[in-house]
């Protein structure tokens, strides 16, 4: 039985989370395999919610699977596809299925996904969703009505330490803390000096910060991320390091880089933990953890 995530956050341990992306369809065996591979190696597993605006098996279903398979799920909830009524009722259901952790996100734009003509909802934003969770915990819904049977969630959010301009992003971060965010998983970070500066600021707030570690699988991928993904900065030296890897060894180099960053973050106590995103390469997460000095290999 996995330890409650909130207890892990409070324990002062270096927190490690990773994530599972539900499939396009009902074939769950691969997801179940990934859950089995990771559930005892990390403190909790995020389950993504129609990630990148691509319609998939739901995050709620995935979170239940994590729970059923003995892991500790973090239910990702975006505001893109559901209005406040649907979000609240999903939270009630999640609570009855033993899901205790929620990550509140705005959600990617519909136009980047695979249902480009769908209506985007955004009835609430991520700060308002956090507030709604705290309201439900007080026994009331957003309509002001009393609930018969309450909920309790460890609620988190995301922050982009490399956003430009940065100050508006930080103002929203502070709003999220005020709205009840207990932990933050950051957008991918690669420049530890920049991240140190962010942490000097973020330490002032009563929330745990888990640095986002996205596995770089090749120099080309690193370059693409740096050039095309908002809020991601990859130092040229890292791209060169990947480019310099022997043929066929780029992935191994990416694992080494991720592990090295985790080790530094942990040993130098830069932040409270890491959130490892291996997007499509979940099977190498145990190797990343081993490189980072966090557990035995698979």
């Amino acid at each position: 039985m996995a330890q409650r995530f909130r207890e892990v956050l409070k324990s002062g341990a270096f927190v490690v989370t990773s994530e599972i992306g539900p499939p396009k369809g009902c074939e769950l065996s691969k997801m179940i395999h990934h859950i089995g591979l990771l559930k005892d190696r990390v403190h909790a597993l995020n389950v993504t919610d129609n990630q990148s605006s691509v319609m998939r098996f739901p995050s709620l279903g995935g979170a239940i699977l994590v729970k059923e398979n003995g892991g500790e799920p973090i239910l990702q909830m975006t505001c893109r596809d559901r209005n406040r009524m649907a979000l609240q009722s999903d939270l009630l259901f999640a609570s009855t299925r033993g899901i205790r952790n929620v990550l509140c996100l705005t959600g990617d734009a519909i136009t980047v996904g695979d249902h480009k003509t769908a209506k985007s909802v955004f009835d609430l934003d991520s700060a308002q969703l956090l507030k709604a969770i705290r309201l439900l915990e007080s026994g009331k819904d957003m309509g002001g009505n009393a609930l018969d049977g309450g909920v309790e969630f460890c609620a988190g959010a995301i922050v982009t330490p490399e956003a430009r301009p940065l100050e508006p992003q930080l103002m929203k971060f502070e709003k999220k803390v005020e709205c009840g965010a207990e932990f933050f998983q950051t957008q991918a970070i690669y420049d530890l000096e920049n991240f140190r500066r962010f942490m000097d600021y973020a330490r002032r707030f009563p929330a745990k910060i888990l640095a986002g570690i996205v596995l770089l699988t090749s120099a080309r991928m690193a370059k693409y991320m740096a050039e095309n993904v908002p809020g991601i900065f990859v130092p040229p030296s890292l791209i060169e390091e990947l480019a310099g890897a022997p043929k066929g060894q780029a992935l191994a180099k990416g694992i080494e880089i991720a592990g090295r960053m985790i080790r530094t973050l942990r040993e130098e106590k830069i932040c409270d933990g890491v959130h490892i995103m291996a997007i499509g390469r979940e099977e190498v997460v145990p190797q990343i953890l081993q490189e980072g000095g966090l557990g035995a290999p698979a």
Partner: protein
Amino acid sequence: MIRSITRQKSIEEILRLLEGMERVFIVGCGTCTTMAHTGGVAEVEAMKEKMQAAQKVVTGSEVIPVACDNLTEEMVCRFLPAMKESQALLILTCAFGVQTLSRFTDLPVIPALDTLFIGKELGTGHFQEVCTQCGECILGETGGICPVTACHKGLVNGPCGGTNNGKCEVDPNKDCAWTLIYEKLKKEGRLSAMRRFQPAKNYQVEPKPGKILLEIP
């Protein structure tokens, strides 16, 4: 001035809508669609040619000064003889004009344009949506820039993670509303307004369809 911003439908869609209707009367508008080059004199003439090329009979055409105005009824009366010879009105005005015309004729009304948004003309040929008439104005706290409209996601509590050096992740030609708001409020010395939590919006201020009946003494 506020403008209704339109774009012409594909000729394939227009011809599909006109299926079985051989005789058409074409209507343009002298205001918004003239400015947007979608339904002025030139576009009505071009549409005439397209219709003729598609073996339609154009019974007449007219560019009405302001199609959405109630005076349109008088224009319809004036062109009644030609319209009576027609099986449809093919209309190069915005949807306001189409619906106004529809009130004054029993002929089928076929829109040749799609109405994209109600916006402002910032410069020649440069139109931008600035207000979506949400009924709950927060401009007083956002530096006079509306995030409900100018932010792709309509976020009211600050930028999302897709903010990209002042631009929006969905389109590098579009500004990030929250960067603009931040810069404006900073200039005003009112960044504290941006720190205030905006509660969930009321999306039913004026339940659709909007209708107000003023009691005027």
